[in-house]
């Protein structure tokens, strides 16, 4: 069970260590059900730390998002570790970054938080609209305990659970330097019901579905930036020569953008659902990612983000890979 005292104590200890630069955790947001990433540099910041069903954000993004300025002459680069709080899905992002050598193992200190599934912000904000003051939410047995300003509400777990958590098979961190509390039992079976539903449509119906979605994209790139696996220094979308994707917003360029984004995550996506959560236009981006994850898992028996020693999916092969599509 979640032990907030222990979490704060571990955080204080960690951030006091000499080899730790800062710690990234979660804190209550400024309103309603929102939370914000919390960057701690000193022990007294620990009071703000929380871990609750609201902690949706995947903080592994911040490992590769940190911008490195050139080190002034005569100074040594800061090689201290970044401490990071991770849920099960977040920890897979860390592992995948290790697999790809995006980060080094001794550059990160992982604090594992076994997780019982987080809330779907959209669903909870729809159920309790207009809540201004920050709300505290806790896990109960098969329910969420929501402490609203006008009284506590209990809601069955299934009703508000985030989409990505419904089928979660890895609620426990797969990598950690310290585990905060005992592991929970995994509940998901990894079915791809949503993908199969779309697959059952005919080709034209699927295009009609996606056309509408892609056309409404505003190309704010929140999906790319929030993704812990999107960390290329020189993104193909920003490149001007060759310019693969024009900057103009229309169905052609938007489709290419989304194809490129999804394909770039083929065999890498750890299904943390951040792209879909952060999209201000509400595009079902996880559907694309999950389709590829399904193929990778079913046809190639591969799953990303589990074993730091494994090779990345697209830079490895098996001689007997399926080739029934080849003429």
């Amino acid at each position, binding site marked *: 069970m979640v032990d907030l005292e222990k979490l704060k104590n571990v955080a204080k200890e960690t951030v006091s260590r000499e080899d730790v630069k800062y710690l990234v955790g979660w804190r209550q947001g400024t*309103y309603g059900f929102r*939370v914000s990433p*919390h960057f701690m540099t000193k022990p007294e910041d620990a009071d703000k730390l929380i871990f609750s069903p609201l902690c949706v*954000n995947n903080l592994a993004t911040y490992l590769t998002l940190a911008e490195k300025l050139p080190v002034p002459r005569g100074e040594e680069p800061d090689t201290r570790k970044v401490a990071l709080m991770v849920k099960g899905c977040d920890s897979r992002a860390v592992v995948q970054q290790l697999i790809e050598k995006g980060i080094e193992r001794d550059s990160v200190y992982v604090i594992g938080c076994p997780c019982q599934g987080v809330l779907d912000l959209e669903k909870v904000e729809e159920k309790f609209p*207009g809540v201004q003051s920050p709300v505290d939410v806790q896990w109960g047995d098969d329910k969420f305990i929501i402490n609203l300003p006008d009284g506590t509400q209990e809601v069955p777990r299934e009703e508000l659970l985030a989409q990505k958590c419904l089928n979660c098979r890895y609620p426990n961190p797969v990598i950690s330097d310290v585990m905060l509390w005992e592991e929970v039992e995994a509940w998901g079976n990894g079915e791809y019901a949503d993908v199969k539903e779309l697959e059952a449509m005919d080709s034209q119906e699927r295009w009609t579905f996606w056309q509408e979605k892609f056309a*409404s994209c*505003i190309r704010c790139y929140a999906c*790319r930036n929030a993704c812990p696996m999107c960390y290329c220094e020189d993104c193909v979308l920003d490149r001007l020569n060759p310019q693969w994707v024009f900057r103009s917003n*229309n169905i052609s360029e938007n489709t290419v953008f989304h194809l490129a984004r999804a394909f770039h995550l083929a065999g890498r996506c750890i299904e943390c659902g951040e792209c879909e959560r952060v999209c201000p236009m509400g595009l079902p981006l996880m559907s694309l990612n999950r389709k590829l994850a399904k193929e990778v898992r079913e046809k190639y028996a591969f799953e990303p983000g589990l074993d730091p020693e494994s090779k990345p999916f697209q830079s490895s092969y098996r001689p007997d890979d399926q080739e029934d599509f080849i003429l």
Partner: protein
Amino acid sequence: MDSKKLTKDKFGGFVELLSKQKLYVPQMVGETLRFAPVSSKDEVDLVFSNTVVPPKSVLFPQTETLYEYEAGGTELIMPEEPEEKVLLGVRPCDARALTIVDKLFSWDIDDPYYVNKRENTTIIGLACQEPGINCFCTSLGGGPASTEGIDLLLTDLGEGYLLQPLTEKGEKLCQDAGELLVEAAGEDRQAAESLHQEAAEKIVRKIEVDTIPQKLEELWESPLWKNISDACLGCGACTFLCPTCHCFDIQDEMEGFEGRRCRVWDSCMFEEYTLHTSGHNPRPTRRERTRNRVNHKYSYFVKNFGTIACVGCGRCIDNCPVNIDILDILSQVVKEAI
């Protein structure tokens, strides 16, 4: 001209009248509410909840062709003159935002693309009765029934709308509507008045902005910016969805032998926004970029145009994936000792 009243049974007729020009109303496009052209009058259903994409997208589209050309040719093909447009159901905050964007696009040189469209557009506002949880328009000189930038203001009285013409365009519309409208009675005006009052009282988030422009200048090197921007992902959700953000990038696009020069929305939160050809970037990290966003709205714009480039619509707060809250930033700015 005096206020008029439009009963709801005549609303269809009113929409039909507006449809003579190109009519835009808030509609669901994909998964989001935004201004889109009306194809049949049945679609029109005025809603109070604010559009996710602000109405600037009609007057300052995300992608706008400046001119077209052919490979090897010397002739520029200019886009057609903009048609007459009506925007129905614009929130007062968004209409006010248009007056702010106007200042920029008619600053030293008139931007023909924007200004022509703006002149050919009639803005019909809808007084807001259900402010969102992150609205703070009253702190910035606006309000749920602010009239700035609106040609004709509607107030939903339940059984009908109160129409207040505010400009010549608005008056002309009322004249054209002629028989559809009746003179508003004194109690209608009072009812509207009290509805406006009620809505203003529902706005809970507030900030004292008077000292902010000065404070921001003094806080240029403050550690505040680092703390705020730590969590920032560097996406463009806040700026693209801001009703007053107006930055754009010019692009040349060729396909086969045809090409065009167009402008597309750009965001100061993107790394490449200030990237020089040399590789140097004067705003190298999200700290500088976040600082610029706040400073542009609350300091530079004030210096150049005498007004804050924020209307308090709350979109950047609602849509930030990591809960970077402009009110939180501003209250820290106010509190911060120099």
